[in-house]
């Protein structure tokens, strides 16, 4: 509209003058702006040139990895302890989480408040995160406080106090934290799914109930600490201006007094396959919508299936352009959203399909999700669809390490699982190598199995839709309440 607006109608021009004017003015503009009609071609994909991860092992067994970043006046440190929630004793799930939370809660001569204040005075921040297989402590600060910060971190790791008053505080915080999360139907679905899918497997301990913490005492925490918090069971990652040699000197100075010790590692068999697909329910009276979570156990991050699974997930439900969203939301209008995700760990992985749907179409949404799985297990993915998924993953990869924390967390995962360059500088090539055949093989092997279908919603709206199935009804903590047999209507 606006381009033509520059054409002024002067005093009564003849038809020919108009045509001439058109040819001289409008037509050339149109012609030269033909490029606006269709999307431009991209440039060739640049080669990935991420900074190298250089590693060494200190004399006490502490692993050290350094990534040099110029123009980066902050130092980012991640300390990985190679023990996560799966290492908690079976009768005490949550000990790993609780122990990790105690590290910044005081030393013999420094109170918890003082630790926080000191970290803040370094322009710093500190956090702890407990995963299935490992625990990460993250500390970032201004580079001119490097020695002070290393000294503090080293003391926090070597001599945490586990003081009674702080234990009570952490107990209270964790209790409310989990209670708050339990308001979210998706959290409940994942919580119960873990308990069913990983029934006899250590990963089950990731589902921590809020009453888990009430019986913990100092001894439980110190036992866990003394068993796993050893330099030969830890790895430090440093991102900043320092190179490996300089970093090794600094880290040795502050961490060499941390003495090594024997760490026993339990052998973890992979999770058992389910005998049948199970429909499991958690009742949330008057819920406005239904949360659906379908879960499969899949091979570990170190298996050859890792990259095919990443591509498979992308095709099935990685983004709004993927199959699940296009089917359940765009085509059928059942769901507010429908995605899938794949989380790969040391011993195995978890593949989930998650959606939030209108209660009256809960069953229809489950049926469509299972059909999508059936389709991907039985029919190879067409090439154009596969290529689209791969180009998304390649384009998106730098965004997954864009922020300060996601950058160092990716390096931490690589070190924690001992991953190759395939997850760093060779990522593009490894995605490109995946073809329809490999994905098809992986899909058959991993998703052609029985699954747990978790439904969180109002049972009175939904049970009728499920009368053709046996439905196990659980409470939000994962305790079986009762079973609705096939054909029975509530």
């Amino acid at each position, binding site marked *: *509209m*606006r*381009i033509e*607006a*520059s054409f002024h109608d002067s005093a009564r021009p003849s038809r020919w003058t108009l045509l001439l004017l058109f040819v001289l003015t409008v037509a050339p*503009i149109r012609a030269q*702006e033909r*490029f*606006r*009609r*269709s*999307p*431009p071609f*991209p*440039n*060739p*994909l*640049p080669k*990935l040139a*991420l900074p190298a991860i250089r590693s060494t092992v200190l004399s006490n067994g502490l692993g050290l990895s350094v990534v040099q*970043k110029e*123009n*980066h*006046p*902050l130092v980012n440190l991640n300390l990985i302890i190679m023990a996560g929630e799966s290492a908690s004793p079976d009768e005490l799930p949550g000990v790993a989480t609780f122990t990790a939370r105690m590290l910044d809660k005081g030393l013999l001569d420094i109170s918890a*408040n003082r630790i*926080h*204040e000191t970290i*803040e*005075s*370094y*322009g*710093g921040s500190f956090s702890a995160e407990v995963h299935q297989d490992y625990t990460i402590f993250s500390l*970032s*600060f*201004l*580079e*001119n*406080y490097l020695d002070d910060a290393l000294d503090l971190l080293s003391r926090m790791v070597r001599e945490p106090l586990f003081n009674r008053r702080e234990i009570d505080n952490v107990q209270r915080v964790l209790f409310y934290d989990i209670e708050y999360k339990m308001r979210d139907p998706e959290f409940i679905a994942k919580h119960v799914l873990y308990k069913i899918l990983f029934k006899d497997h250590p990963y089950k301990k990731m589902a921590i109930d809020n009453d888990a913490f009430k019986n913990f005492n100092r001894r439980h925490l110190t036992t866990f600490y003394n068993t796993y918090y050893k330099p030969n069971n830890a790895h430090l990652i440093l991102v900043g201006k320092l190179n490996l040699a300089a970093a090794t000197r600094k880290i040795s100075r502050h961490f060499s007094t941390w003495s090594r010790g024997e760490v026993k590692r339990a052998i973890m068999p992979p999770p058992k396959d389910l005998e049948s697909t199970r429909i499991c329910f958690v009742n949330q009276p008057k819920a406005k919508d239904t949360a659906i979570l379908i879960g499969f156990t899949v091979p570990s991050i170190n298996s050859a299936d890792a990259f095919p699974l990443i591509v498979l997930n992308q095709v099935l439900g990685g*983004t*709004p*352009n993927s199959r699940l969203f296009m089917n359940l939301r765009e085509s059928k209008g059942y769901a507010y959203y429908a995605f899938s995700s794949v989380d790969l760990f040391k011993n195995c992985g978890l593949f989930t399909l998650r959606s939030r749907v209108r209660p009256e179409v809960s069953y229809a949404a489950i049926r469509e999700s299972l059909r999508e799985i059936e389709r991907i297990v039985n029919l190879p993915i067409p090439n154009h669809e596969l290529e*689209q998924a791969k*180009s*998304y*993953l*390649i*384009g*998106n*990869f*730098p*965004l997954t*390490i*864009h*922020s*300060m924390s996601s950058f160092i967390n990716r390096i931490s995962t690589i070190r924690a699982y001992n991953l190759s360059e395939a997850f760093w500088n060779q990522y593009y090539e490894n995605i490109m190598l995946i073809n329809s055949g490999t994905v098809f093989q992986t899909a058959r092997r991993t998703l052609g199995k029985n699954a747990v279908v978790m439904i969180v919603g109002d049972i009175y709206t939904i049970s009728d839709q499920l009368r053709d199935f046996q439905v196990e009804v659980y409470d939000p903590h994962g305790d079986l309440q009762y079973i609705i047999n096939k054909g029975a209507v509530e």
Partner: protein
Amino acid sequence: MKRLPAIVVVLCFLTSPVFSVQEAPSLTFPVSGFTLKNGLHVILAQDNSLPLVTVAIAYRVGSINESRGKTGLAHMLENLMFQGSRHIAPMQHVSFIHKIGGTMNAATTEDKTLFYQTIPSHQLVLALWLEADRMMSLRLESSSIIRVKQSLLDEIRNRKERDPFLACSLYFDRMLFPDESYHHPVFGKESDIRMVTIEDARRFYSQYYGPNNAVLCISGSFDDDEIIPQIKKYFETIPPIKQIPPPSISVHENPPGGREEIYEDYMIPLPGFYLGYRIASPLHEDFYPLVLIEYILLHGMSSRLQSRLIRRERSAFRLSGGIDIKKDLAAFRIFVQNNNEATKELARRSIQSELNNMRNFPIPDREFDKIKSMFIADFIKQYYTSEDKALRLINTYLLKNKIEDPSQELAKYLAVTPATIVGIMNRYFGRDQFSLDLKRK
């Protein structure tokens, strides 16, 4: 013919002798700025550390440009910008960006409407094509207006249901900013949104969405030789807007005097209160110490109010707030939620005692050093990713009409002394206090 780029500045953080204890970190990054023939201002900030680029574009239009009875129009236009333009189908902008692995977002404030996407760098031109097309030829049809209206009304209803404090927060906003242009929330009044016509949207678009009312920032990895010709190709032939209308309602220069009110609502789950002060404009030199005051009071677990109210006394279970900027006006607000009326009174007294203390005694050196370290670290983080950098550069440019050297900006904060803080505390946190007491009906 003007030769481009007109200005190229290299900005860097310098170690300056102003700081005795706190040394500003040395960090350099290139930034250049120039204006196209049609008035579009362009900011370029190159950083090749990752193969990513952020393309951000801001239009100088927001809720203060809306006239009476037309509230929510600016926010609606933000949404309509995704409903297709001459060569792009409705929502295709979003799917183009998603398909290549990028992320995108948009936002409307009182004085600007912002669109940005972070994408793999080899796809940079795609974003230029998409942004240029909707700047030049947005398709405004009744069907898209109906669709957007419905989704905006749903969104407002959801927000009201989800956030029991939304209504009182907006009420407090009106106490602090009584000027009529701030009397409505950015998302608009529901009754006005229902009445918006396609002509309103078309008029608004043609009045404000032009190159001479916009700033484009490209930050991240790009080819130096390629970028300027590409920007010119896609943007320079877009005709400028002839006359950009100023906001229809003028803003009072002088801040209003303080007020105390009680707000009763059945939605309010627990007792609480707002406390606020009108403070200097972000363009005023007092703004630098005011930002540090925000840190002293509220940032981090060891800040004065957090440590006293949350950790020591447990008189509050939620405490938030800070500086709230609306174009060139600003206020300092504190929001406290308590368990009961008794702890509410305690929290109120404790805040007053902390403010009093800061009005009368200079902040100890050690605490002030901590504040400055925290500030420097946060300041650096604002320039960390290409997206952070683009948004920061655009916001600063819109506010100050120039690219500000971050090292000089940082120096102004670090030059603040404990004595300045005392003076500023007395100037802005003395009389003229606004408070809103929240009670459940």
